[in-house]
């Protein structure tokens, strides 16, 4: 019982303690997940093999995890950038859909000369993602409209727009399914010769490095920290608050848009109704666990990518239902989140009364 103990907030959280609590939470969560899976009939011996060896330790498994990680890094980073300036981007999937559509649009119309096709697809996807978040941003800055509602709703609109295209003008004529025609070879991100890992990895890593540099050593990063910490004080100090918020939020939209294009051009090679599902949830979890730190976003995305890869294996080879896979993943994430308590607070035994 907590009656016997007190929680005392730490004034400073040492890095070592923070890392230890993440790790402790992860181990506890995985153990709990293992327990559930054994109950469901997965042989205990196979767990180590599937969860750890096949996901992180074999070249093929690691390749799958890294492939899953690439778009996660981009959406996680996107969410983190917006959070830095206290903007809740709940429309990650909307911007992702717009980015995916922009890339598909370029491919269908065969815009531009062939060597420039792929760069154009990627650039336009960023522009589309940024434009899709520009409206909620303008509404917020001009009239204080809550971005939580506006970005969320624009996410739904984006999805309906995708459906409208896929069931209409963009439907693949050869199969009749509601997916866009497959991309030409020149429109795909080159593979790196390691499973399905594609050149999107370099884009994701570059985005991480760029974001870390902007936040860490530039004046713009300092402005963002000040705006995030106390917006009124930043304004009174004469900092360009609106500009800072606009740059970070548009950057957030652009990264999410890029994630959409990277999924289309890197792994799926076509636009379908299912490619964007789940990224809203993932983006927020990643940004939160990483505390909006770009380098931590990379680490968390990698682990989450592993979790998703293992989930896929469980579904296909052990007949575990989608719901149970989500439950297991939720258990792991929740225990990592809960373990934060021990980093932020000291538990002190209360003397007996």
């Amino acid at each position, binding site marked *: 019982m907590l009656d016997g103990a*007190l929680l005392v907030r730490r004034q400073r959280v040492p890095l070592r303690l923070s890392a230890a609590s993440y790790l402790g939470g992860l181990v506890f969560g995985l153990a709990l997940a293992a327990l559930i899976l054994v109950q469901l009939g997965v042989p205990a011996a196979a767990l180590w093999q599937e969860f750890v060896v096949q996901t992180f330790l074999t070249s093929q498994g690691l390749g799958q995890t890294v492939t899953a990680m690439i778009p996660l890094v981009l959406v996680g980073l996107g969410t983190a950038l917006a959070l830095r300036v206290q903007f809740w981007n709940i429309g990650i999937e909307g911007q992702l859909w717009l980015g995916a559509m922009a890339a598909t649009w370029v491919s269908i119309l065969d815009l531009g000369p062939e060597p420039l096709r792929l760069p154009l697809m990627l650039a336009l996807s960023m522009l589309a993602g940024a434009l899709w978040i520009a409206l909620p941003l303008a509404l917020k800055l001009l009239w204080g409209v809550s971005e939580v509602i506006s970005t969320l709703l624009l996410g739904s609109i984006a999805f309906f727009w995708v459906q409208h295209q896929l069931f209409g003008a963009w439907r693949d004529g050869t199969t009749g399914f509601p997916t866009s025609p497959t991309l030409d070879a020149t429109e795909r991100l080159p593979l790196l010769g390691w499973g399905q890992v594609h050149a999107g990895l370099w884009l994701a890593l570059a985005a991480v490095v760029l974001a870390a540099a902007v936040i860490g050593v530039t004046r713009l990063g300092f402005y963002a920290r*000040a705006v995030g910490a106390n917006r009124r*004080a*930043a*304004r009174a*100090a004469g900092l*360009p608050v609106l500009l800072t918020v606009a740059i970070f939020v548009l950057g957030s939209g652009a990264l999410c848009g890029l994630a959409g294009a990277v999924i289309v051009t890197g792994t799926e090679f076509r636009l379908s109704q299912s490619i964007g599902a789940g990224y809203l949830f993932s983006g927020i979890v990643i940004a939160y666990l990483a505390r909006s730190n770009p380098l931590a976003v990379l680490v968390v995305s990698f682990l989450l990518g592993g979790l998703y890869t293992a989930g896929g294996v469980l579904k296909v080879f052990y007949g575990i239902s989608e719901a149970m896979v989500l439950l297991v993943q939720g258990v792991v994430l929740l225990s990592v989140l809960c373990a934060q308590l021990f980093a932020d607070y000291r538990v002190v035994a209360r003397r007996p009364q």
Partner: protein
Amino acid sequence: MGENGAGKSTIMNVATAVYAADAGEVIVDGRDVPLRGPADAMAAGLGMVHQHFRLVGSFTVAENVALSLRGAGQKVSVAEAARLLGARAAELGFRLDPAARVDDLSIAERQRAEILKVLLLGAGILILDEPTAVLTAEEAQALLSLVRRLAGEGRAVVLITHKMREVAAYSDRITVMRQGRTVLDAAPAQGLAMDEVARLAVGEIPAAAPRVAARPGAPLLSIAGLSARRGDGSRALDGLALELAEGEVLGIAGVGGNGQSELVELLSGLRRPEAGTIRLGGTDLIAASPAARRAAGLRVVPADRFDSAMAPGLTLAENLALTGIASGRFGGRWLVDGRKMRREAERLIADHEVRGGGPTTPVSLLSGGNAQKLLLAREVSDGARLLVAHSPSRGLDLRATRAVHGAIAEGVARGMACLLISEDLEEIMSLSTRVCVINNGRLSAPMPASEVTPDRLGALLVGHA
């Protein structure tokens, strides 16, 4: 009694089980009471009125009381709570509308509501934390007589305060704390020399700030016809006008809520005026951005430093750099020079004797006095021509108050002008060259500080002159 940070509020929060003690016991009526939470303290008859009231702003007074009573396990309807409130208020000899929304009440009325609530919860021991800090002199008098009446009913009342003189006359016994220890234990108030009590509370007394010499230079600030409305449409400032010269301190006294906060926000550029001009050294700043105003030498110390001046989550160095970074003082156009930022912070921290942390400590870990010293170090720096200071020593102990006043006086001696807005007359009188009073968004005619008498000021404060 005791200075800020002496531990007065802490010990009372322990007594009411808001905080848990590491060691020690709470004895009520000779019995050791185990306190596991505020509910236990309430059951033991301890009731505390905190400095920041525990009332739901969007509820009526009666709803707040009903909420608390039900929380304590009594099934009371809002109508019954209203009846109880009315009866208890009448007994104590004041009026309070139980159907009024707490947000619509004045601070003094909220305080009365809070006291009534605690009494109705059955408090035999009433603890008031800095009850007079937010009240005008008259309201404080009324409150202290109310406290005497409650004591007359047989209740024990604890008054936590650092305003010694004001409270001493109403107390039977006085306990003085300093740095977490009791230095005077429940001495009978009668026959106690106040100077002695003050010395006990403070330890050694730092030298008083040097009185600012009345040596006004060239005219600097000229405000005319300044008008503004609050968010609810009521008039905050009504054609306010003033003149201020270099090296001069204009003290604006007045009861809180007469337009002071709005005036400060208009000057810092956080609020748009309806009409008027603010000329600083000949340039009209009325439409200028906060950045342009700072560049022109206008500096602001607002009443709440964490509202619009500093960010508690940022470090000392970052907070100090907040205002200089946009002009490129810490790095070039694109990058930030963290080392230069920390070096400058080290210098300012040493020069202004800020204690409790270094350049990389978050400001939230500083005490109020040290945070305020840090803010003044930033605002009264190179290029400051006009300092707008709103209640700069509110909530600070004597030592920190002296440091803050010293920093202002030093700036003024260098030729900076200061607009000092405060409800603390002692503060106004110790720094100002001229004094005026703000009332309903208008200023009285300024008078030289030497001609100010309590009678004249008192009449202006209540708006009868």
